[in-house]
């Protein structure tokens, strides 16, 4: 690994200013569990690493009955996984946190880092001059693409690897972003971009902008949620496909309102508004759920090796919905 300057700002403002003054040579660094691999493999070549861990006040979870939960971006995945309130009231977040990588990585990896991690595309991670690294081609498009996207792709066909992002999208979470001109709050849905909008970064974050906190509204009385991650091996694996569901259910008969979010299918955490609308009023039996699923991801464009993701995502969604009934 090439050497770099390691800078430890103690306030988010200082970190933001450093990012602006150093420009592209600087990298924001939280747990570092992903960034370190990219630095070791020379995919990242930053000469200044701005460590966020000395900034106080961003590593806790606070609960409020009326406003919901507020999670600091430096909170580790382990802290989220073991939080009792999250476990009982936001099962989807608890389950997503527990599915991430391994205990060692959950102990170090942070929520902010998880949301901003780089794609796991093997062409991006290996020695290929692909679009995401400023090259002219997506090698996966005609290459090996079993784990690539089935919707939202082009000109780059990555999938976004974050489990937390999928869960937070299903929860309609809000992201508080710090910048030198002040803080702003956006829905997490607006945090991510498709490659057609920007093929070199996954989020809208501009230089100097730092995710400060995540807000999730309190669950309703009849809210049930779950996160199912389908991975090829038992642990330390990324989702082939994942499904996050947040449903308002009446008397186990039908859904009042619901939202589904999907991982492993698109270059960003994905949700399908048409499908979410269909969830409202949906009767909780296999026939009507299957029928509603018919049109899910109808606008998909599968590649040579990833068509299996379509039945997989539909079947997992059906299973998730019926499990919550």
């Amino acid at each position, binding site marked *: 690994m090439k050497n770099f300057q390691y800078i430890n700002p103690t306030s988010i403002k200082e970190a933001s200013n450093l990012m602006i003054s150093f420009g592209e040579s600087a990298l924001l660094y939280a747990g570092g569990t992903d960034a370190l691999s990219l630095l070791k493999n020379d995919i990242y070549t930053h000469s200044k690493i701005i460590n966020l861990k000395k900034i106080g006040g961003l590593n806790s979870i606070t609960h409020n009955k009326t406003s919901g939960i507020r999670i600091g971006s430096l909170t580790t995945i382990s802290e989220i996984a073991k939080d009792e309130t999250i476990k009982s009231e936001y099962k989807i977040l608890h389950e997503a946190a527990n599915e991430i990588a391994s205990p060692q990585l959950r102990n170090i990896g942070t929520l902010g880092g998880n949301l901003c991690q780089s794609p796991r595309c093997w062409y991006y991670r290996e020695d290929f001059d692909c679009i995401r690294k400023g090259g002219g081609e997506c090698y996966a498009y*005609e290459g090996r693409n*079993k784990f690539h996207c089935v919707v939202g792709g082009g000109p780059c066909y990555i999938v976004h690897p974050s489990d937390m992002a999928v869960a937070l999208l299903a929860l309609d979470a809000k992201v508080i972003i710090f910048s030198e001109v002040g803080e702003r709050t956006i829905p997490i849905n607006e945090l991510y971009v498709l490659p057609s909008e920007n093929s070199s970064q996954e989020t809208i974050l501009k230089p100097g902008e730092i995710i400060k906190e995540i807000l999730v509204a309190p669950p309703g009385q009849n809210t049930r949620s779950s996160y199912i991650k389908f991975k090829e091996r*038992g642990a330390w694996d990324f989702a082939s496909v994942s499904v996050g569901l947040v449903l308002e259910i009446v008397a186990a008969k039908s859904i009042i309102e619901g939202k589904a979010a999907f991982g492993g299918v698109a270059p960003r955490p994905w949700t399908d508004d048409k499908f979410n609308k269909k969830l409202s009023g949906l009767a909780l039996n296999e026939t009507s759920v299957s029928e509603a699923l018919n049109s899910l991801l109808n606008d998909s464009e599968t590649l040579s090796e990833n068509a*299996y993701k379509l039945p997989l995502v539909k079947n*997992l969604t059906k299973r998730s919905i019926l499990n919550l009934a």
Partner: protein
Amino acid sequence: MTPAVYDAALQIRKKLLSAASAILELLEKDLVYSEGTISDGTNTKKITIQEVIDKMNVREIVAAGARNENPKGYMINSFGAQFAEVEVDTETGRVTVLKIVAAHDIGRVINRKLLENQFHGGIMQGLSYALLEERIMDEYTGKVLTTNLHSYKMPTVMDYPEIEVITVGESDNMISAVGAKGIGEPAIIPTAGAIANAIFNATGLRMKSLPITPDKILNEIYKL
């Protein structure tokens, strides 16, 4: 390796007996070795190995041993059979191995604990060959894409099934001085076949390439 160690140990015993015979003034053929002591058999004349070595005035006794050649006109085979019980999730393509029963003729069992561990390791490598591990290469450039341990998927502790170990066969002294055949590699061989056959038995699908990953099962089921 065990027969070679055994052979070397026999040679060292011979050296010790020869030294003891000079010390005790007895013929080598009349000496009995037992539990670190060499005696005339009635324990009227005896000497410990420690004493023999002290008298020999050497720091070490060295011997080189070798495994004997295979006997002529005698076939040596490590026979084995394995049985797999699997669960195939036809909605996701996931194959879960519930149980492997492995019966192998390994000759003489020398150390049961190490033996079972060898069985487990072999079976798990076979299981991983069947379901997980794949070196994926970019066909246009010839570059390997699975160059790390998260994309080249070796099994974790979450991936092992119940394993039942059965040893059959007896010590066969024609094979080697210790009568053992070994198990490290033989246990790997039948596992993938047993799993693929169990998948066929469960689903009617003949999977013809390894590893049998969920995408391949779904491709078959949904004719993709």
